[in-house]
């Protein structure tokens, strides 16, 4: 599954200073293994992403994407492993949350991590990291626009109104079936991520696995 997504609340690193509202629209590959949902999908950015927890090749380091068996990456236990009740929605939420809050304790990109810490510890005076992020955001946007994606700019654009059903879990029913069986959904499943944005429509479905 290939698709555009966006990552931004206020910003990539909203907590400290890159304060201008800027939509980051990376493109990513989500690959489902044959034994999904027992093993997690893998997520790889196709867009170049400079981030402490994104590898050079675009692979992400997220605990719920760790396979259920002991993973070789390190001796430390991931705080949470993939379990079969996780789904595309929970994965994407984790990706967004990671983009917003880099974890510098186990960096996948050490240079980015060092640079990010420098930026953070200097309270934004060291602009090297910020500048890269800005460039990244801008180029991701123009790329997305070239691909016909309408770039959300305001908070309203991001938060597509959901008819709140009382007592519902924040679970997007649509993604499971959409992605696995390619069934058109017709109910109001739009949460923060609408179908248009996590998936450009043409190549939905589980073609990769």
């Amino acid at each position, binding site marked *: 599954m290939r698709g555009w997504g966006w990552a931004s609340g206020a910003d990539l690193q909203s907590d400290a200073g890159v304060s201008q509202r800027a939509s980051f629209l990376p493109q990513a590959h989500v690959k489902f293994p044959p034994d999904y949902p*027992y093993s997690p999908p893998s997520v790889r950015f196709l867009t170049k992403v400079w981030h402490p927890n994104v590898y050079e090749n675009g692979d992400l380091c997220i605990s719920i994407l760790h396979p259920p068996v002991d*993973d070789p990456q*390190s001796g430390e236990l991931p705080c949470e492993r993939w379990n*079969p*009740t996780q789904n595309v929605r929970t994965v994407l939420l984790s990706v967004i949350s990671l983009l917003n809050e880099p974890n510098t*304790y186990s960096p996948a990109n050490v240079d980015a991590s*060092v640079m990010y810490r420098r930026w953070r510890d200097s309270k934004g005076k060291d602009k090297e990291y910020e500048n890269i992020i800005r460039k990244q955001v801008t180029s991701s946007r123009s790329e997305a626009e070239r691909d016909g994606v309408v770039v959300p700019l305001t908070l309203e654009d991001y938060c597509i109104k959901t008819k709140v059903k009382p007592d519902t879990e924040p679970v997007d029913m649509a993604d*499971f079936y959409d992605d696995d069986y390619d069934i058109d959904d017709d109910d109001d499943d739009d949460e923060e991520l609408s179908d248009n944005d996590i998936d450009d429509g043409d190549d939905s479905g589980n073609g990769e696995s």
Partner: protein
Amino acid sequence: MEDKNQENIENKDINQENKDNNQDTTSPEYDPNVNQDELIMAQEKQIAEEIKAKTAMVGTLESLSSLEKEYSHDPVYSSKVVTLMPKFSNVRRTRPDGNCFLRGFIFAYLEYCIHHREELSRFKKYLEGSKEELFEMGFPKFTTEDFHDMFMEVVSDLEGSGSVERVEAVCNDAGTSDYLVVYLRLLISAHLQKNAEFFSCFIEGGRTVEEFCKQEVEPMYRECDHLHIVALTSALGVGVRVMYLDRGEGATVLSHDFPEDKDPIIHLLYRPGHYDILYKA
């Protein structure tokens, strides 16, 4: 902070070496462009595939003498198997994929249930109620419901046309069998978390009950340990006796009942790291 990074890098290098060692002589050189983790995972997957091809999820009924033959050159184990022989007549092997306890348990339990219909009804009622409980625990509704519904379907099907052959078919159908395993894992997790205060005393490594569940219970293929068994048997109210075949001295085979106050209706054979199903003589 810098040191920490350095450490991480070093650790990775050490891991790298280990990986290369494991990967025999065909790829002795470390190629930084190749994702080594993926290679290892591919190798692990290959091993898992081999096990899968060799062993049924739940095998056929075998005489206990097959165990005796297996250990004919092992004095400790063979004397223990001899001890088991008067009490147990048959064994059914399960696939050693980390789900063996759960697979063995659910097979033996469903098989018991088709001979004891009142237990099947009781189990069905329990299952019906369990769904809401899992939702309350915060499991994603949509996916959890999927696993629950499949379990209900299996139980309803057995109510109608229950036979050992049917249970064999269900437990060996990958889609169905794995769904049952997943749901049992959720039930265990829920029970542990509901009784977190009690169970927290038994969890090693300074982890909370919730962390333990997320790391050791809910993910597929994680092996079941004492805690899992205690939780599952007490949650379901189903007695299990485990016979321990190990290197301990003497010919006696130790056994343990879960939960302790319940008469066992299921018998499992434990060999270090693995559970199979036993049948009483």
